[in-house]
């Protein structure tokens, strides 16, 4: 199956990616053919899983480091900063 251009546009919107022109045609075909292949998952009969070693781990809700010690290094990564804030385009 090939996905429709509407479907790709919808997925692209959710993914915050712009898909246009030749890419649209290509991706509709490619994503469609991959979905065709993975749809064979329908035939799998599920079993009751046995638990494995992994389980949810949380850390204590406590302060782990002195405030501000990473700020400079982290802000240096951001394209737009304002004082000790990362600046973004207006949301509201």
């Amino acid at each position, binding site marked *: 199956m090939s996905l429709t251009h509407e479907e790709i546009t919808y997925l692209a919107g959710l993914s915050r990616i712009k898909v246009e022109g030749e890419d649209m045609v290509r991706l509709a075909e490619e994503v469609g053919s991959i*979905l065709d292949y993975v749809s064979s998952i329908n035939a799998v009969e599920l079993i009751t899983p046995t638990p494995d070693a992994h389980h949810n781990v949380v850390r204590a809700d406590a302060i782990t480091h002195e405030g501000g010690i990473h700020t400079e290094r982290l802000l240096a990564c951001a394209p737009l900063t304002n004082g000790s804030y990362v600046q973004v385009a207006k949301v509201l």
Partner: protein
Amino acid sequence: MAYTSIPEIHEALLTKKISVRDLVTETRAALQSHESYHAILGFYSDVLVENQIIFAENLLAEGKAGPLTGVPCVIKDNILVKGETATAASQMLEHYTATYNATVVTKLLEAGAIPLARANMDEFAMGSSTENSAFGPSHNPVVFEAVPGGSSGGSAVTVALNDVVFSLGSDTGGSIRQPAAFCGVVGLKPTYGHVSRSGLIAMASSLDQIGPFTHTVSDAETVYKVIAGKDPLDATSLESSECVPPTRKPQVVGVPRSFIAQEGMDARIMAEFEQSLQDLVSAGYALKDVELPSFDKALAMYYIVCPAEVSSNMGRYDGVRYGFSKAGATPKESFELSRTASLGKEVQRRILLGTYVLSSGYYDAYYRKAELARANLRADLARVFEEVDALVIPNSPVLPWKIGEKMDPLSVYLADVFTVPVNMAGVPALTVPTKRTIESFPGSIQLIAPHHGEDVLFTIGKAFENMQK
């Protein structure tokens, strides 16, 4: 480079046949002499290397040197080294400077190892050839026009060319084992949870593991022991008490023949693999045919679960806090411009695929089904591991293709058939090269052990290796 193993270097440093500094100089020269293979994306800064040389020299002088002290290495460019560029071979992170060390890097530095350069890879670890690197592919060390495999292609090449005796890669669906096979080196994917993922740029969080490339199984074991261990910074890393290894002495190796007989399996690879099975028999192991019916769906499961996790993990690349940024009129437009311009084709494809299988109306049929189906793989493995101690299968159904030859994404995905089930089940696996060649390319086997069965892999791997001499 003169040395081909970690113990050889260790001995040479202890007996002062060579100094750490001279070894680093030689290694750098070796890496530079192989520039045409495009295995590395850059060298780490002089400050880092100099500090490590001095630290290693001190450890040696004080008699406190460990096996990795003073040993230069290469690290895949999706593993963070504080203060150094880490690109994940993507334009999105082309100018990104890591703000902390990956836990595996902290461990290597504390052991006195000398990270020298960052290795080329498929962008964000998505691919099986390094052809998806935003900065150009790497070349196979044996047949230059062929791919070295991926996504940890650069890491495999630097060891295969003997520029370094070990490197680090990451494996989500075969990205250590397949390039190890394509380049003729040893590659280990540890049990999920044994090696910390803190500081590994995330691809698929339930599948990713960091592991070593080396020339020998013993060296893989050495590096593994340094980088493994519980890490409070990685909630999925396991306590050693939770890692109960198999207790039986390995004697029987299972061969899942009907799984191996894939449509598209190259007969030449199969013929060479049969010779490897004979090597295992000569090494004293009994072989047993086993059935793994759930494995037929493992690739479909993987190409649902992996893109789903990818689409979630790639969400952080929005050009706001770091990475490539292109401003639009609104935040949404800024995200779209930044992401579309800097994320490559394969990355975008997997994000879209992952978004589809997670989206309303499809989530249950695809993602939830595939995620639950992983239990089928584990159950099949648990059943066969009652009768056999390990499994042996090939690494790839196809030989390394020519750079640029494979254009269809699905055909590349299908070549992952022998590696993805391992990540989906979380078990460890080891690629060991043979001394035989298939059309000039190296032969290899892939050993798979039960969860926490790294020692089984090392035992059988070493015995198999001895048969290659």
